[in-house]
């Protein structure tokens, strides 16, 4: 069967889908959230080239959407898989977004009209921005079709929204459809690629950093939104407590990671670099700010990475300090960073701190693994059958895992793996077909 299922529309899944489609296969791309793009869509710039993340990703997202060989199921989940390599039967649950994708032109009139416009924290902005009960996750979302948030929409919470739902009234093409119901779609595919990516650890479980208690302690992903021109502050660096531009910022590495005693022994592999990028961005936005990076080991192991860090130090004057930290807060909501320098206790007052937290498989990765029948490790990373020569093959033939859901990796590696899985799928389906033909000719 010349078809494949890709689960997860981050950069790894997008690449896999595109390469398979270009190779002539029929591809179904199932994305859980209302839009494809994954984490990369949330990033401001990307190391080590400082390319604008969404600017280089958006064309690929659109290509994916427009490709005649790709069918995109957004806001959908895989709920059942049966069969074997070459012949999987997959059940996909399509959640109602209450907007007809066929009719919607993406104008956004409904969003403007929503009576609860701007009331709720926006997931895409990691809670820093606001949205209504009907919203686009972000401007370049693909598909560019709004989604109704049932948890907040008045029609669901109060049973009615004025005389007529405001969004429905505003839509000139009649795309709002509150009659939509969950739908289960059955697909037949020859192979499956899992590319579900990561979730950051919620650092409020780690008391020493004060996240959740101190307003000016934020996560790196929140920072990416804060510094982004399309983010909640339009790229103006403002600290959460009072909206002031921070003059001193600390970036803290290995938050929750590399801690064998807590059972989270591993290293997320991208934080040294992304926080260096984020530190550089502070200096580009506010050249006078002082920036400190607290690290354990600087792991700058990719092409151009060491040079990038050298530039951060020499050109941008970012100060790197090798130490773990403890964070306290004073009355002005400034933060006191306690650290250690060659055995001596030291303190540093900063206006804001950014945590590079451990990055883990998606919270539901193990559930998905159970549906697929494949093995994961203790954290939920999809485990390869043969770490060395078949790194993308999972424990089940015909099912492959790529990108961050397999192990921590950066964007280029995720892209390379997306392509690589496409090669494995083409190889597998080719050999199954050849075997089928042989069998056919024997008969």
């Amino acid at each position, binding site marked *: 069967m010349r078809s494949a299922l890709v689960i997860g529309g981050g950069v790894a899944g997008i690449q896999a889908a595109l*390469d398979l489609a*270009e*190779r002539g296969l029929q591809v179904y791309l199932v994305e859980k959230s209302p839009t494809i793009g994954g984490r990369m869509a949330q990033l401001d710039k990307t190391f*080590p*080239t400082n390319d604008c993340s969404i600017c*280089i990703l*958006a*064309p690929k997202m*659109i290509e994916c959407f*427009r490709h005649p060989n790709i069918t995109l199921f957004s806001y959908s989940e895989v709920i059942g898989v049966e069969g074997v390599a070459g012949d999987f039967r997959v059940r996909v649950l399509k959640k109602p977004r209450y907007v007809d994708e066929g009719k919607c*032109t993406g*104008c*956004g*009139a409904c969003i403007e009209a929503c009576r609860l416009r701007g009331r709720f924290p926006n997931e895409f902005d990691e809670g820093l921005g606001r949205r209504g009960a009907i919203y686009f996750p972000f401007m370049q979302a693909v598909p560019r079709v709004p989604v109704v948030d049932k948890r907040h929409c008045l029609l669901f919470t109060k049973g009615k929204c004025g005389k007529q739902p405001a969004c429905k009234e505003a839509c*000139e*093409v009649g795309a709002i459809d509150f009659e939509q119901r969950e739908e289960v779609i059955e697909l037949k595919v020859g192979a499956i690629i899992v590319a579900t990516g990561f979730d950051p650890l919620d650092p409020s479980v780690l008391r020493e950093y004060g996240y959740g208690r101190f307003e000016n302690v934020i996560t790196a992903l929140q920072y990416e939104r804060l510094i982004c021109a399309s983010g909640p502050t339009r790229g103006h660096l403002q600290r959460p407590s009072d909206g002031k531009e921070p003059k001193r910022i600390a970036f803290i590495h290995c938050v929750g990671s*590399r801690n*064998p005693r807590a059972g989270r*022994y*591993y*290293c997320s*592999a991208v934080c040294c670099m992304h926080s260096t990028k984020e530190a550089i961005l502070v200096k580009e936005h506010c050249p006078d700010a002082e920036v400190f990076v607290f690290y354990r*080991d600087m*792991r*700058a*192991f*990719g*092409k*151009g*990475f*060491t*040079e990038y860090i*050298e530039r951060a130090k020499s050109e941008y004057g970012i100060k790197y300090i090798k130490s773990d930290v403890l964070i306290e807060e004073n009355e002005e909501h400034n933060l006191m960073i306690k650290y250690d320098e*060659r*055995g001596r206790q030291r303190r540093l007052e900063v206006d804001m701190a950014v945590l590079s937290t451990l990055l883990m498989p998606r919270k539901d990765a193990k559930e998905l693994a159970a549906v697929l029948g494949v093995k994961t*490790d203790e954290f939920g*990373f999809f485990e390869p059958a043969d*770490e*060395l*020569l078949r*790194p993308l093959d999972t424990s089940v033939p015909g099912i492959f895992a790529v990108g961050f859901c397999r192990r*921590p*990796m950066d*964007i*280029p*590696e995720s*892209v*390379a*793996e*997306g*392509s*690589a*899985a*496409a*090669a*494995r799928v*083409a*190889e597998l389906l*080719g050999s199954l077909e*050849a075997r089928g033909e042989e069998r056919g000719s024997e008969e």
Partner: protein
Amino acid sequence: MREGELRIGVFVCHCGVNIGGIVDVEAVVEYAKALPGVVHAERNLYTCSSEGLSRIRAAIKEHNLNRVVVAACTPRTHAPLFQKVCEEAGLNKYLFEFVNIREQCSWVHTHEKERATRKAMDLVRMAVAKAALLEPQEELSFEVTPSALVIGGGVAGMTAALNLASQGFDVYLVEREKELGGRLRTLASLYQTEETPEKIIQKLVKEVEGNKKIQVFQGATIKSVSGYIGNYDVLVSTEGGDIALKAGVIIVATGASVYEPPTGLYGYRKYENVITLAELEQRLKEGQLPEVRDVVFIHCVGARGQDKSYCSRICCAASIKNALRLRRRGVNVTILHRGVTMPGLEKERLYNEARGRGVIFVRYELERLPSVQRSENGRLEVTFYHEDLSVELKLETDMVVLVTPMVPNDDAKELSTMLKVSLGADGFFLEAHVKLRPVDFATDGIFLCGAAHFPKDVAESVAQALSAAARASIPLSRGYVVAEAISSVVDEKRCIGCGRCVEICPYGAIALRDVTLQLGEVVLVTKKSHINPVLCKGCGTCVAVCPVGAIDQRNFTFEQIIAALREATTTVT
């Protein structure tokens, strides 16, 4: 298509309120109607909706349009859509012009409605002037020879070859050495597995040799390469003479070498028991390691801001693997490092294991490098500054292992010139885009994987090799490539053969070739630039660099651009 009457149609989009809320769309339509050559103009609530599209289709028929201008959002997302509609209505898709009055007018001038409207008019006027001069273009398609050349028979090259072969393509695998296997042939163990590298190589070699689709050339090198994607002519020089091959795509999998410290650095080549990590691997493999009680590893020798600027990614892991091996034999191991680079899951686990088993890790800084001397009792003595304790220490040892980075092969430059692909500042082969095209070269049809790209381990090399195979299989399976229609052309009469365009073209699309000129009696052979239409991406760089204006780009000709600019600079009230 300059002959005949110009019949331009203009479609202006409201994009709901996105444009219509700021720009007076109706006024723009009225304005467009009066422009020279325009026979029809209309507005649409959403030009991109199925209704809007059928309006374009109908208007082309109804008004016999031979040019279409759409003033709407961004060509990045929407141009292909409108072009397709033109084609459906029988109009060549290059007779279409796009104006962005959303990003360039309504979105950036939200507070200046009037001026936004005037700007929209200006942009439409420019587009109409250019559209009048547009010409139909043809998308040429070229056949692809369904075979691949893979250069380098290490784990990356063999993996790529095997994958392409099982996808059904013929593969030529060219290996410089007498045997396949690459670096792995010299290693004693691997940090990911208990299996020996030898076994792993044997397995792969057996598969490669048993595959009828793969033809292996051992002890062979590439003598020359000419042609372009789909049609490469390759000359392989083997012991038995030169062999000519035809390939549709090329994969570079030539691996890397290992840095050799200069004589005397940390006593290298001066004291017998100062060896590199690669030498240690070799000795362990051959069972030649002398009895040792204490061993000191020094990391980052020649790397990270020294002779080489970069961190070589895998040496920490390769070193710790060997440290553990020695530790298991009861050897005392100290590792002098500059930060331990063990990212991810397995490596960090290995690092924790090494610490648990008593491998001592001590950090040093570039500012205070360790040194190695002969000790009084004939052993080696390592002096180093313990950064975390702020003291200078001395350690007697039997052996010092210098952990050095992987470096580009000596002949990388030569190969890159032959293939017309680039090397980065670090000397490794350079991919088309560091983030999103990690295994493509900028030149179409040539791909890259393994340590030739940058130091990496076996699993990473395998993933990349598969990735390169996937990318390479796309033109191979399709059987043809479609060239960019908006390419550049050289006017040979004007070209002075200076070759500046050849140097600057990022896609290796231009070459100087001999042209025979007949000037009356005199026959002259001179160099003229020629652009390969298959490789040209229409970036226009060469157009800008040509000192005599001999290059013109289709659909962006001087004439067309000047026509648009002329409109831009005329003030209209």
